[in-house]
């Protein structure tokens, strides 16, 4: 699998440049999520501020990459692997931008929760969720860089573990909400953070599914939905 080797070297350069831009955006988003989770788990307000400050950069990268894709489609009329590759780039940057938004959300709550000692009771569960989501994000970007569809499938399966952790934490937080009505606001903020971390896992899973699409031309999204529909 090679996205280069076109007769037109200029076309090769354009696709290589596009790929590098996506990977740069991936690195930035990965850093944003890492900083946001550290800000939350360790109460580091300076990291939370840094995340909020850099979010515009993620958004700008998404717009620039989309623009470049539109130009390549208009000028090169890509087909087959090139078409799938461009289609995937457009989808991947959308997911990366949303991970950026989730990170910014986590950073905002991290600032608000930094003085709340009670919410720290749940950080152990949050920490585990963060470690799964971080691994999923880093590995999904690695799979995209190497177009490794086999590993992409393995990573996408990790999302179930993250979902289960989220469910467990939700149950715990629901009980806490009933028991301690004075701390509803901060408990809800922890829930929203957990939800944001769970969404990061969903976006990383999407990236993995796009890798399978680029390599094999097979769309594996929502396969569970389709098979359950077939069953009925």
């Amino acid at each position: 699998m090679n996205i280069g080797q076109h007769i037109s070297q200029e076309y090769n350069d354009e696709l290589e440049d596009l790929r590098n831009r996506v990977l740069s955006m991936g690195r930035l988003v990965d850093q944003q999520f890492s900083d946001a989770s550290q800000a939350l788990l360790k109460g580091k307000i300076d990291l939370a501020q840094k995340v909020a400050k850099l979010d515009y950069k993620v958004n700008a990268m998404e717009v620039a990459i989309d623009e470049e894709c539109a130009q390549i489609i208009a000028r090169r009329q890509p087909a087959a692997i090139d078409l799938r590759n461009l289609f995937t780039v457009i989808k991947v940057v959308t997911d990366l931008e949303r991970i950026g938004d989730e990170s910014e959300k986590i950073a905002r709550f991290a600032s608000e929760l930094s003085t709340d000692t009670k919410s720290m009771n749940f950080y152990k569960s949050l920490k585990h969720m963060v470690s799964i989501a971080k691994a999923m994000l880093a590995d999904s970007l690695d799979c995209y860089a190497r177009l490794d569809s086999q590993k992409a499938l393995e990573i996408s399966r990790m999302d179930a573990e993250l979902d289960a952790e989220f469910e467990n934490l939700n149950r715990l937080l629901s009980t806490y909400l009933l028991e301690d009505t004075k701390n509803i606001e901060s408990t809800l903020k922890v829930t929203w953070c957990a939800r944001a971390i769970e969404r990061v896992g969903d976006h990383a899973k999407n990236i993995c599914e796009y890798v399978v699409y680029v390599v094999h031309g097979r769309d594996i999204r929502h396969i569970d939905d389709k098979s359950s529909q077939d069953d009925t």
Partner: protein
Amino acid sequence: MNNNDIELNQQLGKTVGNPLVDGIPRMSCQSVDVFYNQDLQAIFNVSVDLAKNQILAMIGPSGCGKSTLLRCLNRMNDTIDGCIVTGKIYLDNEDIYTSNIDPVLLRAKVGMVFQKPNPFPKSIYDNVAYGPRLHGLMTNNSELDDIVEESLTKAGLWKETKDRLNKPGTGLSGGQQQRLCIARTIAVKPEVILMDEPTSALDPIATATIEELMYELKSSYTIAVVTHSMQQAARISDRCAYFHLGRLVEVNDTNIVFTNPEHGLTENYITGRFG
């Protein structure tokens, strides 16, 4: 067959995709080989069907044999000295290479439109009326008038030419001339229309008009088109056949060929890679 040919055949294997169609095809090629002067083989063991009311686009680099195969479909290769065609080619289950088939009548059933518009140096009316007169398709002039009007209407040229039917066909623009040639082909009531790069000499607007015409014509005819424009093949065809060095590498639904082709050589060609 020399060693290079044997090696290439092993590398390419058999045609991938769906070269044959379900049901009865309008035309069918079975194990067709074409030789020029015995020592030069242009086509190797090609089997492919032309489905009714569909457009089959034939693509591939220059010299890959796509035009040679197209010309086999109405025995145009008979006119080339030393050209030998083996295998079977059927039109509605009838072998067109048997001795009882008259090539002139065959070419009325399987018409052809060429790369460069080639109207006869006659009036627009006579260009279209030439075929029906030759084949005696009418009994009086009124019927001939009807055939001319119907053919020009189907070719999308009636409105532009109805007031100048006695003017020379060569006085029309390139795109109009090509539509006149299509009208001339339609006039003899063919079943299949073969088109050999029909728009390569035309500007984008005339090309779009011809492509729209092909879309309308496929409800009445079966069409095979050779084109060097991949975008054109993607736009107009239902199925697409990729040829490489005389072999038919892949035939598939056009949607599949342009998003996820099965053969690496097809992918290299349509994405503009070295192959």
